[in-house]
């Protein structure tokens, strides 16, 4: 048991921080629901970060660390599926961005308007479909990702992949790691706000009601982070369900509190909080939501009914 970064991990994250530092700000000053950055996605890919799990001596844990760190950025890029799921799929390295979907092939999916590949969980198998972006209909939403759907899909164009459980396991890890990054960034933004904003002659953040609920929010963020990293390390289905389910079960309270403490500012697009909280709210329902992860977890740990 050792919670410190290895030298290799420190080196990767330090390089990542340098790269992310070059993509500071522009775009997020605009009043928009999300800021997808194709340039950042390209830079991450070019520098090899999104393929870190394919490198000798690296693996899913390193990919999860990367996903968590990238999710703290106000810009949104598709990192979870590329870094954590792509390495287990029968596809060439570099096929990205990847959109993920459960069930109906024509459902609405995160990142579909920018994706090269759509991975659909069909229950007993997965279907890997190349995406013709010209055929993707963008979907307007408050949820802070680019969303889209395909009007029609020919399943015959897809590649069948049998190990759908492995996809779900990695999807849960990616979801939890991304949620952890969003939580950390959203919490930091609100701490800054309540420290700077004065009411009744004192900083808002000195009120005990706010102390307590932000302290609880920090427990949520820390638990989400460590559960996600453990799940990435073990690549175990129960750990993955714990990580995703825990994150999803806490998102409603976490996002409510953070918006509440930001007052009316938190309802504007000018204040960047929504760039993380509306990613979290999108993640809350993915893969069937917290209840689905919980029931999967129960079956994995304790088995079916006798």
């Amino acid at each position, binding site marked *: 048991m050792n919670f410190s970064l290895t030298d290799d991990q420190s080196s990767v994250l330090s390089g990542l921080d340098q790269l992310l530092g070059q993509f500071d700000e522009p775009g997020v000053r605009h009043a928009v629901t999300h800021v997808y950055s194709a340039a950042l996605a390209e830079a991450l890919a070019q520098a090899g970060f999104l393929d870190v799990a394919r490198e000798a001596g690296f693996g899913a844990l390193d990919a999860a660390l990367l996903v968590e760190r990238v999710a703290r950025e106000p810009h949104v890029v598709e990192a979870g599926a590329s870094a954590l799921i792509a390495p287990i799929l029968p596809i060439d390295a570099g096929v990205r961005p990847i959109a993920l979907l459960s069930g109906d092939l024509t459902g609405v999916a995160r990142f579909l308007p920018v994706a090269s590949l759509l991975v659909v969980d069909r229950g007993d198998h997965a279907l890997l479909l190349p995406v013709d972006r010209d055929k993707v209909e963008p979907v307007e939403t408050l949820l802070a990702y680019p969303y889209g759907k395909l009007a029609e899909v020919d399943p015959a164009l897809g590649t069948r992949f049998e190990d759908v459980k492995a996809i779900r396991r990695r999807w849960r890890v990616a979801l939890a790691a991304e949620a952890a990054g969003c939580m950390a960034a959203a919490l930091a933004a609100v701490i800054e706000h309540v420290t700077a904003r004065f009411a009744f002659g004192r900083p808002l953040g000195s009120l005990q009601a706010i102390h307590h609920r932000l302290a609880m929010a920090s427990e949520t963020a*820390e638990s989400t982070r460590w*559960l996600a*990293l453990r799940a990435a390390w073990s690549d175990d289905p129960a*750990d993955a369900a714990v990580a995703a389910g825990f994150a999803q079960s806490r998102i409603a309270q976490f996002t409510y509190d953070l918006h509440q403490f930001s007052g009316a500012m938190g309802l504007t697009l000018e204040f960047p909080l929504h760039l993380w909280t509306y990613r979290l709210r999108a993640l809350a329902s993915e893969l069937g939501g917290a209840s689905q992860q919980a029931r999967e977890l*129960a079956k994995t740990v304790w088995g*079916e*009914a*006798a």
Partner: protein
Amino acid sequence: MEFGWTPEEQAHRQRIRALLEETLPSNWEEISVHGPGSDAQTAYSKEFCALLAERGLLVPHWPVEHGGEDAPVWRQFILGEEMWAAGEPRGAQYMNVNWVGPVLMRFGTPEQLDKHLPPVRRGDAIWCQGFSEPSAGSDLAALSTTAAPVEGGYRVTGSKIWTSYAGKADRCFLLARIPPAAGGAAGKAAIVILLTDMRSPGIQVKQIPALVGEGDIHEVFFDDVFVPSEDRLGAEGQAWEIINFALQNERVGIARYEFSRRMLDRAVARLKAQGRWGDAVIQDRAARALMLCEAARMLVYRVVDGKARDLPPDAFASVARWAVVQADNGVNDFMTEFLPDGLLGADPVQQAHHQRAIAAGVASGAAEIQLNLIARRWLGLPGEPARK
């Protein structure tokens, strides 16, 4: 970063499980449900801790010069996890090995070490913690029990409350204040720590009947009790530093989530036996309780990891404590809703867990105090303005 156990750690855990299997009497469950402060468990703890001492499993984490083996922090923590999950057969003595001993080693005189460490090492010492008072619970600095300096020592007057194990204790780790009239400084600086002999004349112990278990909480009255100077731990004015050191060790010393985790297994087995496990709602709720246990586990491990790597303590221990309280209560709530018969005589172990869970947010100071500490020391939020 590594979240697994070494082969040595796994073997250590197996060794402890085997020892528990081999040693615990057939009526252990019956003994353990009364709680660590009960007559039955206190009596058994002396037998059990003596055995642990004999097998080198009581204080291996202590330094060699104090009778330990300098064993890694994780080894002791694994022992704690297994003990707590088994109902804590060390009884009150877990406290001695977790923090009383280490605090004495850090701040005690050679004479104090000679006097107090051997009984702890033998598994034959019961200590109690004289911290809380009727008007000073979580606000420990408000304590008013006085220690008036007299020739050769102090005269202690006042009372303590919620004191676990006091009815059986040989010694009390007692906090008292030098009164201003006797030259005591203001605030925390006036507090002294007195390693008080519980057989001293003038001490009266009264058990408080409670929901949380037999013999767990008491009132202790001190009526002009003489404590010799050689029983004062540290210098006058140093007590707060020592208390903080002690609390850091205490707050992560108990692996409560592990007992809760195993209670969940027990609950699911009962639900299966009753033919109710197919209910998706029950599965959902059981797994959500499990998630809380695993979150608490990871945060506690993060604290222990810091200790194992000799990092300076930080406020993360408070974050972990909050998660542990959520886990204990999450499991308790689940069982109370879906297995209420456990509290109606069908499962005494469930009732014992219930009793520990309802105390989880209060024992060692209210969990809301931890939230204050997280806000100020972990998140860096501004403090509340001082009252005028």
